[in-house]
């Protein structure tokens, strides 16, 4: 079985000092990019399948700047077989529509039985790309999957999270599956994995190779950002020490009274 995991690069939010106070703009320079943490769970789910199902390969796919290629070594070190990166200056500024339009052509070219992705990204947090990809590719989309129960006879059965509980769903392959963090903690790369990853291929694709002529990137995008502002800052918390329960409870109760919340 051929599994493709779509991965997105996102700014390292944990490390970034995010807003320039003078310009009130996001600081983009000097921020490391990392794999979208949710995609690491998708890779983990793919590797679990690779262990279970014979002749399974795991290919990573990302639409990302050429300069970021090496970031994918970490994911290859976890155990994926190879990576394909769609890089093109014409892609800069792509929104959900443009990203999914271009990535669709790339996924068609790569070929797959199963695509896995994270359900959300850490930066835009739209979660729109996987649905649009599944739609463009014309394959069933199983979203928010917490457990892949079975893949057999060209069908997949999975448990998916819903807002109030879960569902068991079944559909044919090829399919597009987004996973939640419940699939299991992403494994660490072993030393052997890290050494082996150095020899794995990271291929690149361009828009021309995919025959994409429609404008993508910021020209083709269907959304544009008009403004970026810092959030309204909250006043500093009042801090109350509560040596016993009654003191603490009274402090909260009085505060809620003051704000007319009780």
């Amino acid at each position, binding site marked *: 079985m051929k599994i493709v995991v779509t991965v997105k690069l996102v700014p390292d939010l944990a490390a970034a000092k995010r807003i320039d106070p003078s310009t009130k703009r996001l600081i983009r320079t000097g921020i490391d990019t990392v794999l979208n943490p949710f995609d690491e769970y998708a890779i983990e789910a793919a590797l679990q399948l690779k262990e279970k199902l014979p002749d399974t390969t795991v290919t990573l796919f990302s639409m990302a700047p050429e300069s970021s290629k090496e970031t994918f070594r970490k994911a290859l070190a976890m155990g994926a077989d190879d990576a394909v990166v769609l890089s093109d200056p014409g892609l800069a500024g792509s929104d959900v529509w443009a990203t999914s339009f271009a990535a669709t052509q790339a996924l068609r070219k790569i070929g797959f039985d199963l695509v896995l992705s994270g359900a959300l990204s850490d930066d835009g947090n739209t979660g729109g790309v996987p649905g649009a990809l599944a*739609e463009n590719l014309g394959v069933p989309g199983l979203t928010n999957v917490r457990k892949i129960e079975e893949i057999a006879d060209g069908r997949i059965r999975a448990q998916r999270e819903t807002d109030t509980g879960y569902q068991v769903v079944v559909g044919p392959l090829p399919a597009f599956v987004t996973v939640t963090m419940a699939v299991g903690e992403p494994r660490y790369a072993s030393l052997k994995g890290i050494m082996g990853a150095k020899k794995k291929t990271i291929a690149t694709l361009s828009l021309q190779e995919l025959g994409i002529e429609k404008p993508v990137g910021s020209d083709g995008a*269907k959304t544009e*950002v008009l403004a970026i502002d810092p*959030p309204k800052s909250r006043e500093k918390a009042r801090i109350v020490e509560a040596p016993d*329960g009654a003191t603490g409870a009274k402090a*909260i109760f009085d505060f809620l009274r003051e704000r007319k919340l009780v």
Partner: protein
Amino acid sequence: MRDVIVFVEHRGGQTRKVTFELATEARRLADALGGKAHAVVLGKGSESLAKSLQNYPLNAIHYTEDSDCDRFLLEPVVDYVEAVAKASGDAVVLVPNTMLGRDVAGRLVARLEAGITSDVTEICVENGRIGCVAPKLQGSTITTCAFKNTAYGIITVRPNAFAAAPQAIGAELIALSKPAGKSYSIAIENDVEEAAGEIGLEEAAVVVSGGRGLGGPEPFETLLRPLAEALGGAVGASRAAADAGWVPYSLQIGQTGKVVSPQLYIAVGISGAIQHKVGMQTAGTIVAINRDGTVPIGETADLLVVGDLFQIVPALTALVQEAKSAPA
């Protein structure tokens, strides 16, 4: 874009407050754009829900009881919403920013070649152009986005961010006809509700959340639930509590859980990791109870009480109950 279409999320005809928020906002937007406000209600229970939505200022409510919407994942639902949008020719679709809403939204982007902005907390219209305000990058920036190059815009809207105001204007009920020759691929074999009967977390005016500090599942029932009930609210949790199996994931608040904006959020034994804060930092008032006075939740809270939750929570519940039973 002129018309505004609301995707109504419901379960067997039971819907959530966000539907009324979207219906109210749809009217305001449609007026600003010079178009009509529509709602789409699909699957079992739709007819009665459609009728009750006539209490909101919509022009048309499209509905179907087609059981395929409940038997198959997503595809039938998206077909119907797409059909209503295409019939309009030029529209904004409002969906709640929930798991289902996001799924529908992503599909519509491809079907309608649409723009999308997500987790929107404010919408403005200027010279016929829509601006959507949304917190991004874990709440560290607020972006305003607009649509371009397209006849369709999809907006996923944060629950509790908009006001709901009923107003009957005689909305027309329109029964949708089934698209011909469709077959659907993903069957729903089993649909389990784990948090049945709870007030929807996203719409609760008060959320009392517990974290690892609770130490096990029991205190959620014996400590948090009585406090939440006394305050007329719902119980939430941190990821650590859900991961430990103390509560179902459907109670989890944060980046990978639910995003809530209640009037009051009480964080009990929760340290306040950024991924948790993303889900609650727009709450009106935030109170934290933690034995450690240096935890990051202190940066977001209005009041941080440093002490033992096992002593403070029952005492607080008693005070709230007392106040409720005392004549005002």
